[in-house]
């Protein structure tokens, strides 16, 4: 037997069809955006603790009460932590409840009569269609199956 070939995920990390100019444009714009972001980050941090004379170099006026922004963000962090803790509790409770065999009712696999009723076809035809390797299905305008060629 030939050795089994290991699976290699078919990632496309470098598409040949993408023009080089487009890649350079993306890279240049992204570098610019990062530079702008770093500048604004400096401003945001500067609003909290950089000496006032440095503020003259920054692009915007600092908020009147910068620590308020930090406090609101901290509130949301705590709120999200509490919410996720409640979700964790729910998971733990459900694990305890369904520990061991799940005794809830299982639905049986539908039989041919049920399937035929759902799809509007004759139940007697289904076994032959399931055995066929190639089928052609015709629908009418409403989407009902009108003919199947096996």
């Amino acid at each position, binding site marked *: 037997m030939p050795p089994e070939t290991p699976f290699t995920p078919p*990632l496309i990390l470098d598409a040949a069809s993408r023009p080089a100019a487009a890649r350079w444009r993306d890279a240049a714009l992204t570098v610019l955006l*990062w530079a702008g972001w770093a500048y604004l980050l400096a401003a945001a941090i500067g609003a909290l603790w950089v000496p006032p004379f440095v503020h003259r170099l920054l692009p915007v006026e600092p*908020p009147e009460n910068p620590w308020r922004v930090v406090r609101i963000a901290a509130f949301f962090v705590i*709120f999200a932590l509490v919410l996720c803790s409640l979700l964790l509790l729910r998971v733990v409770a459900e694990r305890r409840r369904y520990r061991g065999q799940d005794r809830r009712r299982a639905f049986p696999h539908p039989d041919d009569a049920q399937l035929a009723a759902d799809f509007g076809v004759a139940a007697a035809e289904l076994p032959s269609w399931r055995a066929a*390797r*190639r089928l052609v299905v015709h*629908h009418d305008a409403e989407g009902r199956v009108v003919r199947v060629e096996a």
Partner: protein
Amino acid sequence: MDLLSALLSWIYAFVGYWPLMMMLVWTIGGVIFFLLHEAGGKRQGGPPPPEGPLPRVTILIPCYNEEANAEETIRACAAQSWPDFEIVAVNDGSRDRTAEVLDRLLAEIPRLRVVHLAQNQGKAMALRAGAMVANGEVLVCIDGDAILHPDCVAWLVRRFAHRPRLGAVTGNPRIRNRSSLLGLLQVGEFSATIGLIKRTQRLTGRVFTVSGVVVAFRVAALRDVGWWTADNLTEDVDVTWKLQRRRWVVHFEPKALSYILMPETLRGLWKQRLRWAEGGAQTFLRYAADFLRCDGRWMWPVLAEYVVSTAWCYTMAFTLAITVLGLLGLLPAALEPAPSLLSAWGMMLSVACLVQFAVALAIDQRHEPPGAQVWRPLLWVIWYPAAFWLLSAASTAVGFPRALVRRQGRRARWTSPDRGFR
């Protein structure tokens, strides 16, 4: 004027606070799910062999104009490690050479069966035709351009054993095309947004949607909810809500990997996101009322998140319009958002977004092959809050009213957008 100014300041606060809160919830929830279900497990390889009788599996592949992708997809399916399965490829009235490709593969792959629909019927109808002739007790539904990891079906199907009320298990789609800005942003998005949301929603016990590109259904559950809905533009969202409405459980299996192609042009991306938004709204409008009873309470977090996020999209568009009017000098200064507030919150949100992406990529690192340049999307993530939030807000703002006026019963048919650069 004071009242209007106060109202606007509430709106601006909502635009800033809501995404921050949801980013934190998704990130913390995603980490909890990771610690509960993923950490410590082996990184590579298939699941342990299941106990008891193995269910027969049918892999259903609806194909519409997939001549370029169908062969690769079907060959990957044929290489699955699950012992007992068949492949049913449904050619949905394709206008290209898909029929020829499928018929040729029929001779080569014994597990393959082919169903040709005489006319294009739409994805939901193609799935129904495949289900009608399937032999499996479990249907694994994938797209015509998806490439499954050899253990994907095994990871999905093992969950059905001993869980009689498990209706569906959704897998973990990984993006193949990662060579452009849009491609890499979507890699980050699938980890940081879609992946973390699914993980967190599983903690609530309900999910917004399975991934139509890789999902396994118990046939009995599908039958119980009336199969797929033919007039919904996102048949995966629709069937997820129908299953949960009938109290079927939906799981997320992050180890079930499916490699997919995504659009890498703005036009293709917009077309796809608009369809997602419109289909999501169709589902909400159709089923939300059914969950307002007490026995639907576990779906309330999903409903609430959808309603508030949709409202956020409109307030975001409104705030942008107000800002532009202010810049043009057409608005009194008292009504404009304060520049210092915008900069402080903009920075807070962008830092939170970076943290969210870093955490998500760290979690998904174990599902990436060596040499996949896992952290590369972080270099480009700076675009995400600016570009993708706007895209999402705009697609929802346009998609929701389109769903409101869309005629019920009108068959959902669409052509996939571009599949990126090769």
